[in-house]
């Protein structure tokens, strides 16, 4: 054992070298764990599992609430290979404006589609479906919510959609019509956020689309909200589409009887043409 003489001055980057060593070792450990758990967590982003073949390939952008319905539709549709991308209607519109290559666009409200139309980015939109807002509660309705007025109960954890998204605007309208003041715990930036929180049991109630409740029937139940305006879903082909004929064919399928049945099974209401009451155009919040 040598004499323990005084240690030399620490090198300037010895700390970062040691840090890198620690990070490298830990990342290797984590990577191994992650790879082992990979099969359980494979995310499906709407890719069709069929072979590419000679079929045309189409890209469709759709509102988040159409996720399950459109996935099923794409699986059933065999005239083309449909790649799907979901998001908030505003975000989708922004993508189309930025030039994302899409053939078909489906929005959850009319103003967003009107914005694309007036920019000359889409062809004439067709009514796709309608969706109603409902009160979402955990399955079994443990708190016994029966109407919108129950949402104002003190101590009730309510989550709503943020006013910046269409669902949020409709929610505000519905509550205003019902004359109910709700103090939400959170204003989620997407409707799916509302249903997730209610489904996990973190919130006692929320307001979301009927289709969202149908998408998670195992954890959710709905209570009717008659004051809710009808959300009108529109679908259109984009002007920039490289395969306009195939795109039109897809839109025809989606608006056909088969398409309507599919959407109805997923909780959507049939498209209303022409609108019975003046179309709801919520004032754009500033």
């Amino acid at each position, binding site marked *: 054992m040598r004499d323990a003489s005084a240690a030399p001055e*620490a090198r300037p980057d010895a*700390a970062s070298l040691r840090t890198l060593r*620690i990070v490298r070792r830990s990342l290797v*450990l984590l990577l191994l764990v992650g790879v082992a758990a990979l099969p359980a967590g494979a995310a499906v982003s709407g890719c069709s599992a069929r072979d590419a073949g000679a079929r045309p390939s189409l890209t469709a952008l759709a509102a988040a609430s159409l996720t399950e319905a459109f996935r099923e539709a794409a699986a059933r549709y065999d005239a083309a290979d449909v790649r799907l991308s979901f998001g908030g209607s505003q975000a989708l519109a922004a993508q189309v404006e930025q030039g994302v290559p899409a053939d078909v666009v489906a929005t959850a409200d009319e103003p967003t589609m009107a914005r694309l139309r007036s920019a000359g980015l889409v062809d004439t939109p067709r009514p796709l479906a309608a969706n109603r807002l409902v009160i979402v509660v955990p399955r079994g309705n443990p708190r016994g919510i029966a109407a919108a007025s129950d949402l104002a109960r003190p101590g009730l*954890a309510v989550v709503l959609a943020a006013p910046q998204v269409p669902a949020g605007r409709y929610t505000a309208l519905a509550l205003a019509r019902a004359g109910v003041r709700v103090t939400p715990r*959170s*204003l989620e*930036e997407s409707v799916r*956020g509302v249903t997730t929180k209610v489904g996990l049991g973190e919130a006692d109630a929320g307001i979301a689309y009927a289709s969202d409740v149908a998408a998670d029937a195992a954890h959710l139940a709905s209570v009717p909200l008659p004051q809710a305006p009808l959300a009108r879903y529109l679908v259109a082909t984009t002007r920039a589409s490289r395969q306009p004929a195939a795109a039109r064919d897809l839109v025809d399928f989606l608006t056909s009887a088969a398409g309507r049945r599919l959407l109805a099974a997923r909780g959507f209401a049939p498209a209303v043409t022409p609108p019975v009451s003046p179309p709801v155009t919520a004032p754009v919040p500033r």
Partner: protein
Amino acid sequence: MTGRRAPLPLLVPAVLAVGFVTLPLAGLLVRAPWTALPALLTDPALLTALRLSLVCSSGALAASLALGVPLAWVLARTEFRGKPAVRALVLLPLVLPPVVGGVALLLAFGRAGLLGAPLAAVGITLPFTTAGAVMAETFVALPFLVLAVEGALGTLDRQHEEVAATLGAGPLRVFATVTLPLVAPGVAAGAALAWARALGEFGATVTFAGNLPGRTQTLPLAVYLALQDNPDAAVAASLLLLAVCALVLVALRRTWAVRR
């Protein structure tokens, strides 16, 4: 090493790297609605979000320091079975997607969560609260602090601590009066990183704490939502965040210099 010109194979990627980072910031500055900026920046919702962001990130920093420095000390100075596993666990939030982190926090501290359920029984709820936002930010920021401080402690010359012990200082006193001052630059660097990370956190915060103006809507959340219907406001808020971070970096410039 003064006046050495960088060799070309190194200079080109270096310039590209600078450009890669600077261009988006330049884009932000160029496209900013300069004339409307004063009105946008005095929007009460924006200012509330800024205030909340500063409060939450400071809280997250304080929590990270209180928990992270002792943890770093234990990792750097003690030996025990399973130490590599503990270290990997602590660094997990670094590689975890923030939203996943948020979901994990819900499952642990939510109303139906492992710890959250008993807490809720005694009346303590963490989701949807400012405290919850601080927790989410601490979750993602803590590893940065632990990493930096552990590295600094590991390269510290133990002589000073040993001499302090012989002079009569117990372990806690040695830690407070000798160890901490000597690793202060490393702690400061780690704290800056952790604070910046906490300030910019989005996914874990929105998933665990939700989004409510005045209580849990931090500036990144406000920016994301504003992007939906008021892009000008989004850019204004982004500029604000940028300015705050730049200020902090400038203030800490001396710390980087001292460390070298």
